[in-house]
């Protein structure tokens, strides 16, 4: 189980980082989401992995550490809110610049937009 768990975290984080480095806002948002999944799983595993253990003392032979579960819950809530915000912000940026490039425009368009400063809004 440990190996599968570690591989899943690794795959999620690696794909997340790869997508985060893309130049379009949609892959960036998906990348951030994948990273936050990986981080949440990692945080969960910091209380050690256990099967059939409850986070309550005396109900089973072993018990699971309840604190990482609370931390993950907090992290999920915060991560979800932040992702929602970044989606809205990306849509706003797309509407403002007619382009979903993270810099508002591509490098090849730089000379094109520079000739029309009234369109770049700067």
């Amino acid at each position, binding site marked *: 189980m440990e190996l599968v768990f570690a591989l899943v975290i690794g795959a999620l984080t690696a794909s997340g980082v790869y997508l985060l480095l893309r130049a379009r806002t949609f892959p960036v948002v998906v990348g951030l989401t994948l990273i*936050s999944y990986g*981080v949440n799983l*990692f*945080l969960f595993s*910091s*209380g050690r992995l256990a099967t059939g253990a409850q986070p309550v003392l005396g109900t089973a032979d072993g018990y699971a550490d309840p604190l990482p579960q609370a931390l993950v819950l907090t992290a999920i809530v915060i991560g979800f*809110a932040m992702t929602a915000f*970044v989606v809205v*912000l990306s849509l706003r940026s797309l509407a403002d610049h007619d382009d979903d490039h993270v810099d508002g425009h591509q490098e090849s368009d730089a000379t094109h937009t520079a000739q029309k400063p009234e369109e770049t*809004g700067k």
Partner: protein
Amino acid sequence: MNHWLTAPILIPLLGGILQVFMGYAPISLRRTLAIATTVLLLASTIILVVLASDDSYRLYAFGNWQPPFGIVLVLDRLAALMLVLTAILAIFCHIFAIGGADEGNRQFHGLFLFQLMGLNIAFLTGDLFNLFVAFEVLLIASYGLLMHGGGRARSIPGLHYVVLNLAGSAIFLISVGMIYSVTGTLNMADLALKIPELAGENMSIVKAGGMMLLVVFALKAALIPLCFWLPKAYASATAPVAALFAVMTKVGIYAILRVYLLVFGDDAGALANLGMDWLFPLALVTLTMGVIGALGADNLKTLVAWQVIISVGTLLAPIALGSAAGISAALFYLLSSTWTVGGLFLVAEMVANQRGSAKDKIVTAPRMRNRTFLSVLFLVGAVAAAGLPPLSGFFAKLLILQSVLSGSEMAWLWSVVLIGSFFTVIAYSRAGSIVFWRTVDGHIEEPRPLGGNVSVAAGALAGLSVVLVALAGPISEFTDATAAQLLNPGDYLEILKTPMVEGDN
């Protein structure tokens, strides 16, 4: 248990909740309530400074849970100093904002107060995960504030800022998880007890976690190579927001001071002074980068934003060396630079409002209506920021230089700070002489007269550099005592022994 500790969190929380429900109330009512909240906050932080100045640690345990099992708020001199620094900056930003900058977004005051709440939680908390939550609270408010005022120019820097900080939050969570998985605790005092006992692979995990934590704090503090997001984001924000953001980088510096002196301090065994040998050269490179950016800035707000980076470099260099004198000097400079930079952002906005389409670009433009007043404010701010006598920046930099008097560190610090200050003076004099002296004939639309609120706020923030000089004696006594308290973390650990069931102590 001391219930005063919750005041700087509860006051902006309740005030902010009121604002959320009052989005459609008349703006004068919203403004009055918002300012009243900030004034109350300032009063409560002054009480906390008085409480903290007896050198003892005060504790508030949520739900009366004995630390390390519950979340605690801890008040010491450093926390009190940061609280009052933020509250004073906030009140003037807020006064500036009600001069008209708060229009156009019904939730401006709510976001502003929630931002203050996040900052205050970060300064008071004694728990690493709670510090993460505080960072998120202040960040999500800052995302909203950064976009305040709308406009296409803000969406791209805002997007960069949000994505960078989300990546930073992910790294923060990973490092918190790594530290928890080995030590089984996130209470800072408890961590300070457990980390010296680690050995072998456990120590390596905590070491990696500690270094990743430094990356997160460096991102918040805008240390090179994580500083390039800052100038664009700050320069595009509305003036009172940019001025309040002057304290946001200081949260990163506060976290470095707190965590790396307490948890990874001199007593941390194999992990003592973790990462501090990296911090010193990086701080000096940050300072240099800030100066280069300031020289190349093409508008006043970008110039001031690079000044934020210069002050981060100047602050972290003596902190990395870790002497009591250096930390005390850095804290003095922290007060001076935060208020000065805040004031300069406000002045830049006032200049921009009076120059028509030239805005705050460093180009010649028709004469400003209130040129004398604005130029005096800019002069005071620039002198204080660059560190020329007789204002506070000079004394702060002098104290920093005096704290390092031997070895290669002295050669590096003295040369970088002095040469950097020289070029900062050049950057400010170039900007000031072009903006204020070289005027051309031309017609610009008559600007709105300067409002009382706006003038008072900018004038007061600039004037604080004079106040800091006048009160330099008591303030440096306070920072000396703060540095001594920080370097003696043994007393901090006593909070773990505070009895909870008995109630008040």
